[in-house]
Every structure is written in structure tokens, then in C-alpha cells.
């Protein structure tokens, strides 16, 4: 029995590293090679990092209505003044176009409003409980805010709210809906799919029929129906969770099917039988032997289903059936862009579509990368 080869290899260390690599390491090694997925992961990382920093990055109170400054085009911060470093924005003078009666703004090159980093601004609660009033960028003199509520980096909407600051908040709500929705999807999907696939029999039949019936109902009308049923007097938070649940009701069936299929396939694997013959209990077989076999697939499925959640929320809110003001989400911000005339006159209102596209694409690339990496044993 001393028949073992002693393979003397130069890269013995590397071999050892591979040999003791767990599935996560193997997956990471493969994922690393998928460049678009890595870039996407970084982009998404930045987006999710914006969560706690939303107000800090905002230049003005996102809720403040400002009659003098509505439909303002995006403003530029000038960092240099006559060759010396002195960040400022120019003052504005609103006027009506005498021909079209359209509201316009004249840039006043001589009126320079000082801008500085870590400026004092509106008060907010950092992470929900720490009182703060500092912002990444703001007016040097906080008193300026009384006459001009923000720098208006991305301009303002129909009632003069600062689009940039609102976008920061929208980002938070829309992306978190994706995460929470997927979490609910995941729990429902694994539970239903697991029961269905592992136990089989009539339980399986019933769950499968439910999924089939659900799949036969067109998505959008059902979404609309369910969201319409969200009571008008709910608070913003309640509506938020209500909509999340409505969105998840659709996600879980796909997940349940994936999980069920995997369980059905793995149930027949030799190693599952080996575990059973060793005397392992059902729970151990499910959680130690079978589930780890497709964790990675679940992760890939999740990353591919988050975008549909985000799109779902955006569509519902856009149609006025999702979140309602004063909540801010991508969809709510886009409501203003519903009217083609508005878009033609004030194209910057469409800017919100850009982060939506970026996030969705990034999630898709990330999902692709994860899926490819998910099967470290496949070729």
C-alpha cells in the first residue's frame, strides 16, 4: 500500500493551496478571471456604499420646495477663479422668456457664491441616529441656503427640489428594495422548493400546481392590482414594505423551481446515499451535503433577480402604484419625465434613468460572472 506516488513538483505550494481550497475559494479564483463581473461588483459596491452617505453627499435638503428655482438646469462648480483655487458657483437671475413665457435663468458671471468641502448645511441623522449637518460639498456661508436651497448639481424639478440630493435618496430606497425583496424571495423559494423537492409526493404536487397557476397570471396587472390594494393611509415605511412583498411574490416561484430541481437531482447522488448509509439524519443530509452543492447557484440566481426587483419597483412607482411621495425612488423621480413636452424642455429630468441602467447592467454582468464561477468543478 505504499504505492502512493511522491509527486515532487516545483509548485508544490500552489498544488497544496488548490487541494485545500474550499468551494468559496475555488469560486473566487474563477470569478477573478471574469473582468466585467469584477468591474460590475466594484460599481455596485460604490452604489451600495452611497446608502449611509446619501445625505452627506446631498448638497441641499431634498424635500425643500423652492419656487424661485424650479426647472433649473444643472449647475457647474468652478474650482478656479483667475488662476487661484477658489471653488464657487455663479449666481442666477430668473426671468421669463418674453416670447414663450418659459422660465429661464441668467447666469451672473460676477456673482460668485463660495463653495467648500465639508460645509455646514441642512441637519440630518447620519445612519438614522447621529445628528449631523456636514456635507461633502456646500456653500461656504450656510446662510446662502436661505436664498438658494442647493447648488443644484443636477438641476431641479418642477417644484424646485434639488435633483442631486433626491437622487442620492432614491438610490438608497430603490436599491434596498431589491435587496430586501430578494431576501424574502430567497427564504420563500428555498423553503417551498426544498420541501417540494426533498419530500416529493403530494406536497410537491400542490406546491408545483400553485406555482403553475401563479405563473399563468400576467405579471404587470397582478402587480398593479396588489399595489392598488395597499391602503392609502399607510405610512411611507409601511408602503415600502408592502411594495417589497408585492414584488417578492413574483420572485420566489423561480427560486423555488431552481431549488426543487437541485434537490431532486442531488437526492439521487451517490454521496447523498453514502451519507444516509453512514447514519446521517435528514437535516444533516439536507444542510451539510445537499444545500452546499448549490449555494453558489443560489447566489448567481439572486444576483440576476435583483435587477428585476429594481425594475419592478421603478415601473410601479413610475405608474404611480408603487411608493408614494414624500418617499423618493428612481421611479418617483421619473414620474416627472412622463410628459414628453417636459422632457423636451428640461432633458436633465431624465438623468435618473442613467443610474438605473448602470445598476441593472452591473447586476447582470455580476450574475453572469457568478454563474460561471459557481461551478468550480465544471469545465
Amino acid at each position, binding site marked *: *500500500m505504499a504505492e502512493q506516488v511522491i509527486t515532487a513538483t516545483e509548485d508544490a505550494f500552489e*498544488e497544496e493551496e*488548490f487541494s*485545500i481550497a474550499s468551494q468559496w475559494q475555488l469560486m473566487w479564483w474563477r470569478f477573478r478571471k471574469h473582468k466585467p463581473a469584477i468591474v460590475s461588483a466594484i460599481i455596485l459596491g460604490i452604489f451600495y456604499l452611497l446608502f449611509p452617505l446619501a445625505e452627506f453627499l446631498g448638497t441641499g435638503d431634498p424635500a425643500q420646495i423652492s419656487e424661485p428655482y424650479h426647472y433649473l438646469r444643472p449647475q457647474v462648480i468652478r474650482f478656479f477663479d483667475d488662476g487661484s483655487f477658489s471653488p464657487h458657483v455663479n449666481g442666477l437671475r430668473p426671468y421669463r422668456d418674453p416670447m414663450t413665457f418659459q422660465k429661464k435663468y441668467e447666469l451672473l458671471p460676477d456673482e460668485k457664491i463660495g463653495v467648500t468641502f465639508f460645509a455646514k448645511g441642512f441637519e440630518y441623522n447620519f445612519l438614522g441616529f447621529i445628528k449631523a449637518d456636514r456635507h461633502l460639498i456646500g456653500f461656504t456661508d450656510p446662510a446662502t441656503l436661505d436664498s438658494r436651497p442647493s447648488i443644484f448639481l443636477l438641476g431641479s424639478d418642477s417644484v424646485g427640489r434639488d435633483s442631486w440630493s433626491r437622487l442620492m435618496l432614491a438610490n438608497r430606497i430603490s436599491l434596498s428594495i431589491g435587496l430586501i425583496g430578494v431576501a424574502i424571495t430567497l427564504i420563500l423559494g428555498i423553503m417551498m422548493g426544498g420541501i417540494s423537492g426533498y419530500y416529493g409526493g403530494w406536497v410537491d404536487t400542490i406546491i408545483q400546481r400553485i406555482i403553475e397557476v401563479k405563473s399563468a397570471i400576467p405579471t404587470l396587472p397582478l402587480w398593479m392590482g396588489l399595489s392598488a390594494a395597499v391602503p392609502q393611509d399607510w405610512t411611507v415605511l409601511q408602503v415600502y414594505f408592502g411594495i417589497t412583498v408585492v414584488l417578492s411574490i413574483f420572485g420566489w416561484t423561480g427560486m423555488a423551481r431552481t431549488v426543487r430541481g437541485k434537490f431532486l437531482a442531488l437526492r439521487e447522488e451517490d454521496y447523498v446515499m453514502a451519507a444516509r*448509509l*453512514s*447514519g446521517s439524519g435528514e437535516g444533516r443530509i439536507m444542510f*451539510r451535503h445537499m444545500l452546499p*452543492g448549490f449555494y453558489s447557484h443560489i447566489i448567481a440566481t439572486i444576483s440576476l433577480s435583483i435587477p428585476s426587483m429594481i425594475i419592478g419597483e421603478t415601473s410601479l412607482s413610475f405608474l404611480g402604484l408603487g411608493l408614494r411621495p414624500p418617499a423618493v425612488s428612481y421611479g418617483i423621480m421619473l414620474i416627472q419625465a412622463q410628459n414628453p413636452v417636459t422632457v423636451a424642455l428640461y432633458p436633465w429630468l431624465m438623468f435618473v434613468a442613467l443610474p438605473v441602467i448602470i445598476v441593472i447592467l452591473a447586476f447582470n454582468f455580476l450574475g453572469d460572472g457568478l454563474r460561471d464561477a459557481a461551478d468550480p468543478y465544471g469545465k
Partner: protein
Amino acid sequence: MVEETKQDTIADDSGQQDTLLEVNNLRKFFPITKGFLKRVIGQVRAVDDVSFAIRQGETLGLVGESGCGKTTTARCIMRALDPSSGEILYRTEDGSLIDVSTIGPAPLRELRKDMQMIFQDPFTSLTPRMSLLDIVGEPLLVHGEKSSRVRSERVAELLRLVGLRPEYMRRFPHAFSGGERQRIGIARALALNPRLVVADEPVSALDVSVQAQVINLLSDLQEQLNLTYLFVAHDLSVVRHISDRVAVMYVGKMVELAETEELFSNPKHPYTSALLQSVPIPDPKNKKERFVLEGEVASPANPPEGCYFNPRCAHATDVCRTETPVFEEIEPKHWVACHRASELDLRGLTEAATPS
């Protein structure tokens, strides 16, 4: 009924204390269902009235072609499948008999310590996400060994036993070749010191050069640990090498059972003889005009009347087409199920007997 006598004789033969396992009239049928309501429209008779005994310390080879029910038989003995009928008597260390086919979950769990299985495919029988320590140590853990130090010591010992380095313990199966993985599977089977090991085609997925290593390992372990093997295989030369006695199955039925030398040199069932003649011999000097068995294996869902082998049998007579032959001991220790067993002179496999 014929079964009565059969049961008696087997009991006589193995009435000695050294019988470890006795299978009596084992049947396993799988229902064929159809349609939405899963109506049962027929039965696949995967194992159809099989009886044999395994003695303490021996290797019983179980051979047959795919679909003959040999793997199903092995799985019924392991209770990986529940038999449709029949009994599987196992003699525990203290001498008492238990019927494996009917015991409940708790005693079955205890029994798992005594009976273990080695699988055919080393690539699917090891959980890919678990390290060797977890795989080989699992039987210990689930049977109450909570101390991880004790477990890892035992795993190291087991790995050494099967010819792997204990340092490999932290590795995952993907780092090993087929032969090495099969050794890991053997180590897992031995973790609880079993008395009976059911090996289901343990070398047929391995390369020739590695196959010999694993066969040797199995022989060595048998000697060291006083193991009893039920060795399921389709490769007759491997079976010949490793088995003390050989049982041949055809379409769910056992057709012949005898000591290895006897079965290979003096087969009594036409199917056994045909099987032996069909094996290609790795010796070009032996290129012979050999006997080729015509026809196809009968379907276990729809077996022919009488002897299941009769449509392919060159010696079939009318009685073979109508009556099921009895599995009986026609010579001491030589069992066969053939109406014409005593009158036929069939070709076996001895070097001298093969024409040049």
C-alpha cells in the same frame, strides 16, 4: 411451493454459525406508473425471488449484466431501498439474528455500524464541498463521536490504512484522482469498523493500472480487519480474482451460485457458460472462433414465460418455456436454476479447455 424447500436447504447449508447474512426470497419490484394520476400499470421485477447466504470472512461475488438486479439486491441489503418482500437475516456480533428488511429507523442506524458500502463512481460518491476529514469522519460524528480530536486521529489512522497520507485530511476531493478517491470512499466505509462491506462495482470506473491497486487494497483490508465482502461487479476476471464464491444473476433472478473455481471451470447454467465465453481474453494467441450469445436481455418489466433465459438459450426445451426453474443445489455447494442443469455438459473457462 418450491420456495419452501429452497428456504430449508439454504438454511441447512448455512445453518452453521459462520453465516453472516442470509437473504431469503428477496423481491424488489418498482411500479411503472402512467399518466397524471400515476396509475400503476405494471411492475419492473428488478429483484425477483433471490436467496443466498454470505459466510463470515468470505467474498461473495455477485455478477450479471446491467439491469440484472445485482445493484438493487445490494441496495436492498443495505436498506438503501426497502425490499418488496423476503427477508434479509443478519447475524450480529453477539449471535442474534435480525431481519434487516423490516427493522425500524433506530436499530437500522445501529446496524449501519456493521454494514457499509463502497460505491462505483468515485467522482460522485464523495460530497464535493466537504474535506476528507469531514467525509471520512462523518460516520464517526453521526454515531456520537463528538470530540474532533478523536475524530481526526481516527481519520488519520483510516487514511494510512487505505494508503493515503494523513496530511491530506484537510484537502477536498477535487484534489484527488479516481483511484485516490476510491481509497477515500473505502476509508469512509471502514470508519465504524463494519463487519460486512457491500462493494458495488468498486473498481469498474477506474483505469486498469489503478484497478489492480484497489483490488489489492481490498484484499489486504479483508485480511487485516476480518471483513466480509459482497462484491458486485460485471468484470468476470476481477470477480474471479477476488471472490471465494460467485453468484450469477439474470433478469432479477439468481441463476447460479458456486465456489469460484467450480463456477468458472464447470458452469451448470447455459447463461453462465455464455457469459464466460463472451469475455474477451487479453491474449491474442487465444483468438478463437467463440460462441456468441444471440439476442437481447429480457425486460424485467415483461419477462418471458418459464425460464427467463429460454429465448436466448441454445438448450431450451418445452419445459423451459413454460415452467420457472427452481434454484437448487445440484451438487454440493453448487446451486443452479436450470431444468437441464444435470444433463448439460457446458463449456467452462480453463486454460487447457480453450482451443488454440
